[in-house]
C-alpha cells in the first residue's frame, strides 16, 4: 500500500493530465504493488519459476529437440532402452527419445490446457456476471443453466463429445472448456452479487449508468482478480483433464502429449517391463505443471482476497 502516492505531484499540477495518462499511471502503480506483494510469497515464486521453465521449454521446443525425433519411421534408438548418454531419459517402444517426446508433449499439453482455460474462463465470467447482475427471470435462467452444467458428469460428456466431434486437439480443449466453466460461473456469480450490493453500484445507477456500463466498469474490474486467480487453478485442472482424456485414448493420435505418452506406455506394458523411464517422466511433468499453476494461483488468490491476506 505504501507505494501509492497521494501527495502533490509536480507533473500533475503543472500539466493537465489526460484521462488516458491517469489510467495508465494507475495501472502501472497497481501492477508494481501487486508484484511487490507476490514476491513475498515463497510458494508463489516457486510456482512461477516452474511455470516459466515449462513455458520456455514449450516455446523453444524446436531448438531443444528436432521434431523428426517424433516420427516413428525415423526413430533410430533401441526399443525401450533405459537412460543412457545418447538418450538421457531412455527410449519408447518405437525407439524414440522420451526426452524429445516430453519436450514436444509439453507444447500440446500446455496449449490444450490454456485454450480450454480461456474457453472456460470467458464462459464462466460472462455467464457468472450476467446471472449475478440481472435479477429476475434472466438471472434465474442463467443460474439454472449453470447448475445444470455443474451436475453433468465430466467423463461421459467428454467421451460422447470427443466421439461425435472426432479426436482432435480443438475438440479436447472445447470439451474441457465446456465442462469446467460452471464452477467459475458460480464463484463469479457470488462475487458479483456481493459487489451488486455495494453503494457504488447504486451511485453508478444514479449517475445514469446502463447495465453494460455497470457490468464492465464496476463489476468486471472488481471480479477480475478472482478470475485471474481462478484461471491458474483451472489451467491445472484442464491439463489434468487433457492427460486423462488422452490416456483414455480420446486424444489426437497424431500429436504427442504427456497424456498420450502415458497411454502408449500403459498399452505397451511399460509397467510390467519395468520401463519406468517411459511412465514416470510424463507423470512427473504433469504433476509439476499442475503444482506450479496451483501454487501461483493460490498466491494470487491470497493477494487479491483481503480476507485471506491477513492470515
Amino acid at each position: 500500500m505504501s507505494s501509492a502516492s497521494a501527495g502533490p505531484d509536480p507533473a500533475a499540477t503543472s500539466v493537465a493530465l489526460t484521462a488516458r495518462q491517469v489510467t495508465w499511471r494507475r495501472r502501472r502503480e497497481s501492477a508494481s504493488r501487486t508484484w511487490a506483494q507476490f514476491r513475498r510469497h515463497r510458494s508463489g515464486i516457486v510456482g512461477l519459476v516452474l511455470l516459466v521453465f515449462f513455458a520456455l521449454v514449450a516455446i523453444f521446443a524446436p531448438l531443444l529437440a528436432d521434431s523428426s525425433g517424433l516420427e516413428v519411421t525415423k526413430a533410430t534408438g533401441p526399443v525401450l532402452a533405459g537412460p543412457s548418454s545418447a538418450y538421457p531419459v531412455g527410449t519408447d517402444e518405437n525407439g524414440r527419445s522420451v526426452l524429445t517426446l516430453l519436450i514436444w508433449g509439453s507444447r500440446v499439453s500446455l496449449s490444450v490446457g490454456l485454450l480450454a482455460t480461456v474457453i472456460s474462463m470467458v464462459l464462466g465470467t460472462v455467464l457468472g456476471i450476467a446471472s449475478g447482475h440481472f435479477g429476475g427471470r434472466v438471472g434465474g435462467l442463467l443460474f439454472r443453466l449453470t447448475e445444470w452444467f455443474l451436475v453433468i458428469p465430466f467423463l461421459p460428456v467428454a467421451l460422447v463429445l470427443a466421439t461425435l466431434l472426432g479426436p482432435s486437439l480443438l475438440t479436447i480443449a472445447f470439451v474441457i472448456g465446456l465442462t469446467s466453466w460452471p464452477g467459475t460461473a458460480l464463484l463469479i456469480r457470488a462475487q458479483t452479487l456481493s459487489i451488486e450490493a455495494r453503494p457504488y453500484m447504486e451511485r453508478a445507477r444514479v449517475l445514469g449508468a446502463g447495465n453494460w456500463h455497470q457490468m464492465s466498469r464496476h463489476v468486471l474490474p472488481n471480479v477480475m482478480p478472482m478470475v485471474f486467480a481462478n484461471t491458474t487453478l483451472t489451467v491445472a485442472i484442464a491439463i489434468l483433464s487433457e492427460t486423462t482424456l488422452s490416456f483414455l485414448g480420446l486424444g489426437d493420435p497424431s500429436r504427442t502429449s504427456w497424456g498420450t505418452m502415458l497411454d502408449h506406455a500403459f498399452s505397451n506394458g511399460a509397467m510390467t517391463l519395468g520401463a519406468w523411464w517411459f511412465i514416470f517422466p510424463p507423470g512427473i511433468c504433469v504433476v509439476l505443471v499442475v503444482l506450479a499453476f496451483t501454487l501461483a494461483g493460490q498466491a494470487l488468490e491470497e493477494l487479491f482476497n483481503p480476507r485471506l491476506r491477513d492470515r
Partner: protein
Amino acid sequence: MSGELLSARSLEVTFASRHGPTNAKGVDGVDLDVGAGEIVALVGESGCGKTTLARTLLGLERPSAGQVSYAQSPLRYSTRALRDYRRHVQLILQDPTGALNPRQSVYESVAEGLRIHKLVERYHREGTALTEVDLVARALSRAGLRPPERFFLSFPHELSGGQRQRVVIAGALALEPDVLIADEPVSSLDASIRGEILALLLKLRDDLGLSVLVVTHDLGLAWNIADRIAVMYLGRIVEVGTTEEVLGHPRHPYTRALLSVVPEIEQIDPIVLSGETPDPSRIPPGCRFHPRCPALQGGEATAVGVAGRCTGEDLPVIEAVREHQAACWLSMAVSSVG
C-alpha cells in the same frame, strides 16, 4: 406552484411482503414539494420510509400509485427518460467509503457521469470548449477539494472520510444537476467533518442555486441547513412546515418526542418512545402513531375528546401547500378551537 422543481403527489410504494399476503407499504400516500434553491429536510426514524421515498424521487423505485414530477412534467420510467432525469437529480449516499469504487481513482469516479452522459461532446456541440479534465477539476473545486489536480490520482483509501464525501459530491456536481438528494450525508462522518460538509451543501445552494432534499434522523442537521422540514412516520408525512415552525413550535406529538431526545444539556424532559417504528405491513387503524403516542397515553387526547378519532379514524394526507401542518387529531382540534 410554479416554483416547485421536484414534487411527489399521492405517492405510494409497496413491497411484496415475505410474511403473509398483505403488501407492506413503505410509502403510503405522500405529497411533497422541493422548490428551486430550497433545502428540505425529510426527518424520521429508520424504517419510516424516508429512504424509500428518496429512492422513489430519484426514480430508483417505481411508485405503485401516484407520481413524481420534475419541473412540472411527470417522470417517465423508460431507460432513456430516466437517464436524462439523472442529469437533473443526483444522489449523495450516506457512506462515502462504500459509494466509491475502490479500484477507481478520484478522477475516474468524478469523470464517470460525464462519460455516461457524453457531456464533453455535448458541450463541444454547444460551442463550449471544455475538456473532461476541466470539468472534473471544476467539479472537484466546487466540492471544496483544491487544488483539484492534487486529488486526480488519489484512490479512495488514501483520503479521509470528509474528502471521500467531497469526491462523491463532486461526482454528482459534474453533471450540473438542479437537485441533490442527500441520504444521511454526514451520519457516517466524524463530528468535526460534519459541519464542513453541511456548510458545503449550503454554499452549493447559494452559489449554484441547487435544491437539496436531505434525508436524516438528525434534527440538529435540519436546524443547521434546512429551509423546510417534513417529518415522516410509518410511510406518511405527519408534520411539515418551515424549520422554525416545525422545530420551534412542533404540533405533532411525534415531532415533540423526536425533539426531546436530541442530546443536549439543558433540555426538556426526554420523551423516550417505547419500541421502534412498527411494521409497515401492519399499519394500525386510525392515527398510525396512536399506539406509541404520549399525548394519547397521557390523556391529553381524551381531555380534548379526540381519543376515539385517534384510534378509529384515518387522518387525511397532508397536502403540499406551504403552511405549517400536522396530521394529528389532537393538534387539529386544539388549533380549530384556539
